[in-house]
């Protein structure tokens, strides 16, 4: 009974507690939850920053959570508000670019400067020679000569494993394989400390300095890491002091990383700043430097300027010379087709020259120009310059003694005394001068020397010359288009020549008591009926005959015949023409 009442009491208590809890907290803690929910904002905001800080410190998870959110927001901003983003970044990027460009230019200037100083001074050349002599690279030698000392490279080494944590070097590249160097240094350190451990009580011996004549390895041992500086020249105490300071700083900053080092050196990338503090250097003598003048450089600059001036002068001279040369174009019978400077000071000249004109060489001599640097390419042509024509006429007259030419404007008249034969020869010669457009009346002033005894007046010879000229005349033909019988301008010119030749022969023929006649023979090809062609060929001959009459040949001396078709297999187009035949017979 008592047991059951006890049991009942317990049950009652539980029930009462539950009821009480429900009263205070509400069903399943609703009251509290509601209360919390109502004030949630206030409660959280009060501790929000602190909570973030604590959690980040504890396991770094806040960063991980926030990072993707931030990344996403930035990405969104860039995509949607790119203009604003550019606006934010602009001043930053601008100054960054300026800074890097400035740094680049400064660096370039310094390098160029030192290059000139080191390469072009007498000292620089001496150094180069000495560096070559002692078998070290020039830059290394310069460093030893320029700097009282210089920290070339700094190694941060994990003491326990001998593994390299970080390294920087003063030069552009690490000269030695830093990984191996740091391991070997550790091995050597172990070797030294073990081999020369005089007394065990004093603790481990540590390598502090390794020194050669002008190279020092300075080691600073810390509990977790070793800092090593490779120094050229004589290192002063301040390098050791700086190493100590940097080493302490690294131990302070990277205590955790050093302790937990498992071979991953990436945690020590930022230690570069501390290492860089150790890259000390000191120039040997500053006063010496200020006095130094790059004489060699100045000399070279001066030499370059002189050379440029000289070349400029030569070029100017060549141009002047070219200007003078161009005047050759004014010379009768010479046409300048090309004149240019070729190469630096030599000239190239291309000319057309009439054989009658003055030679290029003598022209140059006349102008007192040097021929040395001129390359002349000369091609012959026939000049129609009146001066050249005059010259040609004069040179023909050289063969006819006693004949003078009088020039009125560009037209000559000749006078003097000649035999008939020579007059005819002169006429032939003059006819050959291109551009002269010879007229027979120019010879009207020439008296015929009628000496019978002159062998040149022998009728047989004159007859022969007459035959020659007739043959020449008979070479002239007038061609026609198919079915045509009209004369072109060219044909008329041919007829004028024919007229002149023919008329010139008349007095000679008369002198020999011969009467000249010209038979004009029209012909046609085989196209069309023979009756038509007969008529066509006659018509062609008539047209030519009429024209010659018009040109002043007595019609009694002309006879036009239509030959009809010339039936030759080879004649082809050539059959459409008018041919001439000169006949002479005794006038009596």
């Amino acid at each position, binding site marked *: 009974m008592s047991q059951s009442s006890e049991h009942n009491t317990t049950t009652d208590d539980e029930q009462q507690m539950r009821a009480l809890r429900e009263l205070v907290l509400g069903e399943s803690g609703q009251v509290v939850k509601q209360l919390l929910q109502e004030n949630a904002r206030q409660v959280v905001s009060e501790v929000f920053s602190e909570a973030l800080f604590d959690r980040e410190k504890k396991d770094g998870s806040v960063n991980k959570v926030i990072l993707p959110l931030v990344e996403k927001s930035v990405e969104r901003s860039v995509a949607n508000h790119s203009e604003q983003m550019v606006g934010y970044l602009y001043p930053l990027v601008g100054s960054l670019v300026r800074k890097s460009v400035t740094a680049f230019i400064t660096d370039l200037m310094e390098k160029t400067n030192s290059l000139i100083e080191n390469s072009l001074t007498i000292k620089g050349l001496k150094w180069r020679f000495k560096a070559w002599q002692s078998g070290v690279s020039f830059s290394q030698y310069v460093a030893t000569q320029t700097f009282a000392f210089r920290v070339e490279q700094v190694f941060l080494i*994990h003491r326990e494993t001998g593994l390299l944590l970080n390294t920087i070097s003063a030069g552009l590249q690490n000269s030695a394989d830093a*990984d*191996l160097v740091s391991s070997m240094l550790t091995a050597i350190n172990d070797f030294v400390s073990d081999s020369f451990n005089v007394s065990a009580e004093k603790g481990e011996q540590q390598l502090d300095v390794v020194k050669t004549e002008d190279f020092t390895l300075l080691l600073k041992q810390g509990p977790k890491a070793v800092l090593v500086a490779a120094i050229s020249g004589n290192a002063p105490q301040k390098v050791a002091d700086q190493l100590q300071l940097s080493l302490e700083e690294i131990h302070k900053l990277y205590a955790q990383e050093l302790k937990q080092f498992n071979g991953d050196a990436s945690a020590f990338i930022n230690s570069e700043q501390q290492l860089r503090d150790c890259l000390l250097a000191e120039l040997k003598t500053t006063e010496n430097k200020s006095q130094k003048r790059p004489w060699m450089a100045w000399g070279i600059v001066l030499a370059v300027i002189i050379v440029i001036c000289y070349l400029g002068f030569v070029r100017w001279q060549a141009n002047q010379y070219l200007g003078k040369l161009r005047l050759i174009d004014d010379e009768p019978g010479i046409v300048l087709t090309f004149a240019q400077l070729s190469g630096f000071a030599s000239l190239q000249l291309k000319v057309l020259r009439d054989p009658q004109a003055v030679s290029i060489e003598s022209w140059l001599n006349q102008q007192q120009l040097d021929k040395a640097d001129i390359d002349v390419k000369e091609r012959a042509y026939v000049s129609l310059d009146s001066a050249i024509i005059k010259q040609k006429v004069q040179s023909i007259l050289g063969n006819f003694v006693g004949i003078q030419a009088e020039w009125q404007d560009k037209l000559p008249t000749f006078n003097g005394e000649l035999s008939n034969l020579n007059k005819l020869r002169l006429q032939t010669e003059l006819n050959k001068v291109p551009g002269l457009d010879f007229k027979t009346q120019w010879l009207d002033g020439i008296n015929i020397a009628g000496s019978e005894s002159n062998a040149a007046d022998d009728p047989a010879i004159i007859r022969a010359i007459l035959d020659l000229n007739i043959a020449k005349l008979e070479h002239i033909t007038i061609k026609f288009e198919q079915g045509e019988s009209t004369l072109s301008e060219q044909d008329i010119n041919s007829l004028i020549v024919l007229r002149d030749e023919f008329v010139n022969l008349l007095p000679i023929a008369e002198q020999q008591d011969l009467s000249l006649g010209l038979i004009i023979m029209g012909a046609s090809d085989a196209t069309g009926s023979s009756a038509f062609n007969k008529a066509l060929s006659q018509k062609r001959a008539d047209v030519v005959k009429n024209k010659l009459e018009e040109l002043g040949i007595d019609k009694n001396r002309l006879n036009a015949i239509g030959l009809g078709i010339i039936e030759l297999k080879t004649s082809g187009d050539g059959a459409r023409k008018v041919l001439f035949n000169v006949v002479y017979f005794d006038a009596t």
Partner: protein
Amino acid sequence: MIQKKICLLGATGVGKTSLVKKYVEGIFSEKYLTSIGVKVDKKELELASTKVQFMLWDIEGIDRYCGFQPKYLRGASAYILVADQTRSQSLIEGYEIQQMVKDVADIPGILAINKSDLAASWHWNDSEIAQIKSSFAMSFNTSAKTGEGVEPMFTELAKLLVESL
């Protein structure tokens, strides 16, 4: 990149130096071995997850009369003990070296039974060898001459060390 210090140990003449000669990109000459008893070589290899750079400390041949420089083992992540399968003595000495290493460092050991290009001429039977092998983390038959087993040994070692991180 993960760097690891590995020590190569073994009796004189088992071919430790030859074993790594073709495998590494070192710059130091072998004269270091005789002067300070160690030569360091470097080898990079790439695992699926990361790059590993081994600093291989080739430690001068050890025999029972010669002392052992325990400092060289300091900070090592593993050691490779090289034995010569044409000389029974090399395994005995190897066993002694293993005991010395165990005294100073608790790191995994790899057994490299070298000169696998030659016929085995030691008088160990299979069960004895198996027993010795069992005291090592891994064991490989290698040949410095043909290169057989060398690459796999270092690759497996890299995996072992990186995965134990």
